């Protein structure tokens, strides 16, 4: 009984830790503290955002382009993300100069499973980007993260991002998800 209760509380503590982690991460992005953000990414991170396709109801496996095999919006590791950060930080990446003002919102955070040091987390996101006088981009979708605990700290080991647009209705994807 009280053991049940303890494990229930453990679960709660874990969920809270994960929510804090994801909220803090979103804040780093919105505050453009990109180096601190990179520090939350595991060196073996795989960062993937597939392209959505319109398919027959009985072929759901074709709905999203395949990681490592087909065209995707993003399908890369930390090294490339580092380059993206460096590009923005230079002040000469015109698509982000002047900078966009972003709001990263994370919700429906759910710990799906815990295996050893790896925690699988599902969530929903809304990313809103404003730039210049009138430009607005609204990105809404789903995310599946694998967070790995190393020396007590959590790092993003895998991130799968489902954007749901088929034709991207924005000119650029200069923000991080």
């Amino acid at each position, binding site marked *: 009984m009280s053991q049940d209760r303890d494990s229930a509380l453990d679960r709660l503590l874990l969920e809270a830790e994960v929510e804090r982690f994801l909220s803090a991460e979103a804040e780093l992005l919105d505050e453009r503290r990109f180096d601190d953000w990179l520090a939350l990414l595991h060196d073996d991170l795989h960062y993937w*955002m*597939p*392209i959505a*396709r*319109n*398919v*027959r109801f009985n*072929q759901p496996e*074709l709905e999203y*382009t*395949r990681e*490592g*095999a*087909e*065209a*995707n*919006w*993003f*399908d*890369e590791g930390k*090294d*490339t993300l580092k*380059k*993206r950060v*460096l*590009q923005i930080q*230079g002040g*000469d*990446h*015109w*698509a982000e100069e002047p900078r966009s003002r972003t709001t990263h919102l994370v919700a429906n955070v759910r710990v799906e499973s815990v295996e050893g040091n790896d925690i699988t987390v599902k969530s929903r996101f809304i990313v809103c980007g404003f730039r210049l006088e009138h430009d607005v981009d609204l990105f809404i979708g789903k995310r599946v993260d694998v967070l790995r605990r190393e020396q007590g700290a959590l790092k993003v080991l895998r991130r799968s991002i489902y954007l749901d647009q*088929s*034709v*991207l*209705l*924005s*000119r*650029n*994807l*200069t923000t991080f998800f």
Partner: protein
Amino acid sequence: MQLADLIDTEAGTLSRASFASEEIFRRELERVFARGWNFVGHTSQLPKNGDFFLSRCGTETVIVSRDEKGAINVLLNSCRHRGMPACRYDSGNGNGFICSYHGWSYGLDGALTGVPKFKERYQGKLEREKWGLVRARVTEFYGSIWASFDETAPSFEDYLGPDMQFYLRALLQGPDGEDDGYEVIGGIVKWQVACNWKFGAENFAGDHYHGYSHISVERLSVGLSGKTSRHNFAGVKVKQQPTFLADPARGHTIRASVFAALAPYDDQEAASAEVNDYYRQCHEKRQQRLGDKSRLLIRGGVIFPNTHFNSAGRTTIGLWLPLSAGRTEVWRWLFVPRNAPAAVKDTLREYYLRYAGPAGMVEQDDMENWTAAQRGAESLVSRRYPFNYQLAMGLERRSRPDEWLGKDVTITEDVTEHNQRAFYAHWARLVADES
């Protein structure tokens, strides 16, 4: 604004109205898009009979299908009864299409095969052969598929002209010089940009002057190996001459490099032994196959009006699809050498993704600039001042380094706006054409 005054070929200027006027936009659709040939896809997307995918032909949504006889069809995706799209899946395999509105059914070749109540209520009188899906003229060219809805247009080969046939064939040759050497990677990249389609077209036609757009990425080695700068070409040590070729009578444009001499491979992909070996072998095979002509390396260009491509180590073909004077949808097909090892295909795929499209570290800055420039074409006072295309004006010539570089083309070596001038001169002729 008289249509005849849109362009001033003497001065090398073009009216901003060309990019902002909805009236000119409507004329473009009728006189430029409805009359041309468009790239709609590649045979590698249709391996089996019954395969189909949706594509675009200028303003139109089309079905590209391989029928039971193995023939390729390009069909207007609009039911002849009430206009409903006959197919609503991006791709698939089947034996035809059933319209979800009243259930008319069509074969893979567009034939109207089924009409509910045909006997009872149409009394068998409906002329089914006349009411099939509208079929486009189709041409296969070394694996690429082209379509036109204009019965009066010349054949695709004549539309290309002799020189462009040579360049396009070369584009479609694998790194080893083999014809039809590429296949499409799954997943067409599609997005929208709030600018006129011609900003994209003129960029791909040959804008080597906009390096300033990309200064940020030059610092970051986004090249094929991820260790070199953004461009990479079949590397040889000898001097390569950037060369810009345009077919003034047809509006096609090409960016190319011409190497001073045949030379051995210089291990530019040394970062990966497997990739490097592959490219060395290709380099050698290509020299054997093409001999002296292997000194020509296609870097990209535009098949008039809106089929654009990049090459030089990465092959992509795309479409600038006009939605309105100020909005464009872009489709991009990514290609890899058909026979390359998986490591090469993966390396190329990753290179494309970080380079091109909305998530591409290079093209992001293009899109940003085009979108901003569009505003300058639209506002009331600024649109009184024409755009300037005077770069290297007067430096184009008909004589050329090698006669096999083309008969009908004009050529400029080194950075120039020569190709844009040729593109717009042809475009303006068609737009002003009253026939």
